[in-house]
């Protein structure tokens, strides 16, 4: 363990006193929860007008989008274990936005 400086003891150097990684980790959790709610409503939308092969395909796509977001969030949450996590990669940010757009488009295709 590195030697601490200042009055906060030896742990200040390997742990952010502002708990930034923890807060960011919880923000990803909240967003995963919001994505689950949006995906549930999108999934419900696909079955709203009755069950047929097309609606089942769209439902499967909604589930895939939700799993993709889950994997994305899981990766980022694992990166938050480091005391100084690297910045979010632009690719991950684009993927997260793409998941949201995909849910909107898939559900919009199922509006009756």
């Amino acid at each position, binding site marked *: 363990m590195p030697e601490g400086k200042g009055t906060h003891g030896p742990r200040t150097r390997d742990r952010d006193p502002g708990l*930034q990684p923890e807060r960011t980790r919880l923000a990803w959790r909240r*967003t995963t929860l*919001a994505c689950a709610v949006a995906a549930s409503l999108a999934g419900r939308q696909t079955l709203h007008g009755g069950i047929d092969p097309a609606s089942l395909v769209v439902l499967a796509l909604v589930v895939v989008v939700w799993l993709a977001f889950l994997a994305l969030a899981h990766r980022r949450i694992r990166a938050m274990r480091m005391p100084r996590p690297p*910045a979010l990669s632009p690719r991950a940010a684009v993927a997260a936005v793409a998941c949201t*757009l995909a849910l909107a488009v898939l559900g919009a295709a199922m509006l009756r």
Partner: protein
Amino acid sequence: MWFAPERLREEGGTPDYRFSLANERTFLAWLRTAMALVGGGFAVDQFLPETARPLRLALALVLLAGGALCALRAISHWVRCERAMRRGEDLPMSRFPVVLGLAVGVVALLMVIVAAFGWGG
């Protein structure tokens, strides 16, 4: 710029990780707003069956489009903030929160009226 964000790392210096994480949390908050609007669009279609179909579809589509716009704006703002921090510039200002606030207010008012008077089809 925001459609080619991979070039971001070539600019300026790496900012303090805390600032990057704060920017990431702001991005996630906007993304949640976008998801809430998208979910709200589906909810309008599913839970207001008494409403006339054109009105219901219009409300649902407005909310879905608003959600999509919000998601696109989330990443655009994230990239612009990250770039400003890398270059040591001021953070970008935006009218978007005001516009979104007003738009959500108008839609909410409309929904209250629809729910109260029940414009059935």
